[in-house]
């Protein structure tokens, strides 16, 4: 009751102050047009951005349900920090919840979270223009700390040399497989895509029903086509992209997938679909996929028993000089420019991305911060869930092909709407590549990108 009354009084006072401010601005416009932007008064330029007056009070942190554990652990280890933890969908599947809310907060001039987690890699493409994300390498986070992130991990956070977010985890793709099942069938793990395809065809005839992969998810192109160096999504500048989905690299990988889809050793349901969970989860022989498949998919969703799942490097085309792989997501943490608790927020965002306590020992995904990743791997290997160690993830973390970027438009959404329905109708991926190209170009252009094809 009193709290409500207080807030009413406060908002009234604020409204009054704002109207005075507005009147002042109107008068000032005649003379000069400076300092009349919302909240531009009383700010203090520090750490590379204008900071609002700092206050004591609760730090508001937005996390998805998976990262709730991180915020709770931070609270436990820092009992004197007042935390206001809010869970949201984490922008999963490109839901754009965060962007929607920030646009509304920008209009109302209040409500921004201090620190926010997003499961997407492309938040800075709008969060910088929206004056939401604060620069982190201009004084807030020391260069020494930033230098210990895996090479290229923070590329998705960087605009014109300034880092606007910190990477939570890497999602480099590897080849997951069921070790005892491979042994039972008498197969060896393929190292080239050619071997992979042959084995896939062999499985189709010798053990029908078993799967060597899935092509039904919205992130399917990020596993196969990204690893195959298909230039569908080469972000070449802040607002420019090069798109070529019908190159030899794209077609070669698409043909491989088409063969296996036709033979039914590659499913098209999507690993998180109800259909896959019910009918196919125990038929997985091999599965190219990101680092988080191990914990989130096999252990969490499929409940595959321990000592079965193992990881191998993702196959390469024979004759390729340097190994390359794809990447599926990997979250980012952003700090708000509007924060009234920049110091506390910086402490939180640094801890949550770099601490062994969370990233090394609790986090489900492969940490982007290299020292934490070491701990994480040790922890995973010692957990006894996997058959053998999964140290291949470490090599894969530096082999992500850099020719695939994170634009403002969602590649996953485009693939889902353009290619997936065709696949369901029995069309081949190769035949859908031109339509995919067309759709990417249209979405890129409508988001203001300059497209070269």
């Amino acid at each position: 009751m009193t709290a409500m009354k207080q807030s009413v009084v406060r908002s009234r006072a604020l409204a009054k102050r704002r109207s005075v401010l507005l009147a002042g601005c109107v008068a000032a416009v005649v003379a000069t047009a400076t300092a009349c932007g919302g909240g531009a008064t009383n700010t203090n330029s520090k750490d590379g951005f204008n900071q609002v007056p700092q206050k004591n009070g609760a730090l508001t942190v937005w996390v998805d349900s998976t990262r709730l554990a991180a915020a709770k652990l931070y609270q436990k280890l820092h009992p004197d920090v007042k935390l206001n933890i809010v869970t949201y969908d984490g922008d999963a599947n490109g839901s754009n919840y965060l962007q929607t809310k920030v646009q509304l907060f920008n209009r109302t001039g209040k409500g921004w979270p201090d620190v926010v987690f997003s499961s997407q890699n492309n938040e800075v493409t709008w969060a910088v223009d929206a004056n939401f994300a604060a620069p982190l390498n201009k004084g807030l986070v020391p260069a020494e700390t930033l230098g210990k992130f895996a090479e290229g991990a923070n590329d998705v956070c960087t605009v014109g040399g300034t880092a606007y977010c910190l990477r939570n985890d890497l999602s480099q793709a590897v080849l997951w497989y069921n070790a005892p099942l491979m042994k039972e069938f008498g197969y060896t793990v393929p190292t080239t895509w050619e071997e992979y395809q042959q084995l896939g065809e062999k499985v189709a005839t010798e053990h029908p029903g078993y799967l060597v992969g899935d092509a039904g998810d919205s992130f399917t192109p990020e596993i196969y086509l990204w690893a195959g160096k298909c230039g569908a999504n080469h972000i070449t500048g802040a607002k420019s992209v090069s798109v070529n989905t019908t190159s030899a690299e794209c077609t070669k990988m698409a043909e491989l997938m088409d063969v296996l889809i036709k033979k039914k050793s590659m499913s098209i349901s999507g690993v998180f679909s109800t259909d896959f969970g019910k009918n196919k989860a125990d038929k997985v022989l091999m599965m190219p996929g990101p680092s988080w498949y191990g914990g989130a998919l096999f252990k969490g969703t499929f409940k595959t028993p321990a000592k079965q799942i193992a990881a191998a490097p993702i196959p390469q085309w024979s004759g390729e000089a340097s190994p390359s792989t794809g990447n599926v997501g990997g979250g980012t943490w952003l700090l708000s420019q509007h924060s009234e608790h920049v110091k506390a927020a910086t402490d939180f965002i640094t801890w949550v991305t770099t601490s062994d306590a969370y990233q090394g020992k609790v986090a489900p995904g492969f940490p982007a911060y290299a020292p934490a990743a070491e701990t994480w791997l040790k922890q995973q290997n010692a957990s006894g869930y996997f058959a053998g160690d999964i140290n291949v993830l470490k090599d894969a973390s530096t082999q992500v092909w850099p020719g695939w970027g994170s634009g403002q438009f969602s590649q996953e959404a485009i693939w889902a709407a353009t290619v997936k329905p065709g696949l369901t109708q029995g069309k081949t991926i190769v035949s859908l590549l031109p339509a995919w190209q067309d759709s990417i170009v249209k979405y890129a252009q409508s988001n203001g990108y300059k497209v070269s094809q």
Partner: protein
Amino acid sequence: MTVTHSPVSSVRRRSQGARRQRRAGTAFVAAYVVLLIAFGVVPTAYAVYFAFSNAQGAFTGFDNFVTTMQDFRFVPALGHVGLYLLFWLVSLVVIVVGLALMLHRLASGGAGKALRFLFYIPGALAGAASVLVWLFVLDPTVSPVSSLLGALGYNTFGEVIAPGHLPLLFTIIAFWTGAGGWIVVIYGALNNIPKDVMEAARIDGAGAWQTAWRVQIPMLRKWIVYMVILAFAGGAQLFVEPQLLSLASVGVAGRDYSLNQLSYDFAFQMNNINGAAAVSVELLVVSLSAAALFVARSGFFDAE
């Protein structure tokens, strides 16, 4: 003043009653007017202002309309909504009127009451919740009617929500959630048809079919027009069904499907509130024009 001092008490009483009634009427209307202004007129005016200005608030004429119409998603979205409206309005008019007439025939027995209740139940669920129910029904792996879906040749969710099926699916969902209320309304209207008219028709030898076609439906005309106007306005704003479907199918079907979704995308994904307002103003103009056409052609406001 003079009236209150009038010596004739009955006149005084009557005029007092009339005044009280007038006052009550004004009070009721005032409450509505306040809500209408706060949640109807002001937001509409705000949207119109946005639609004709840019982010800096400068007047831009029809620029926002031109930009949004040139977006590659605009024409397909227009086609989707048009097709959906056709399916939805035709099925609404035919089936709702048919079911209401049937209910009216059955009215004497308990079956009529039970059916009336049954028809109305889905309407009691809130909009988004009833769409969620359908997301389960349409997924063969979890659907209670999966054998039916299987018999139609659909074994995965992806096959059920193929792009060509969407207008039909949205119509079924909308019908299931919205038609019950209309059946009750039309049924009520049927009860208002004077008994002597019905009796005259019967004495003249009209059967059930003839009575329905020549007496009941013509007398329901205004109610049907009323239903069509509201259903048109609601259908043109199609949003919840495709939006939830796109979330459930992880973007496979239903993204950027309707004009309202496009407006939402403009506002929140492309940071173009003004473009979003332009699309919403277009929707308003189309719905108002359609309503005006129906009202004019049906003599909606003619006295009986």
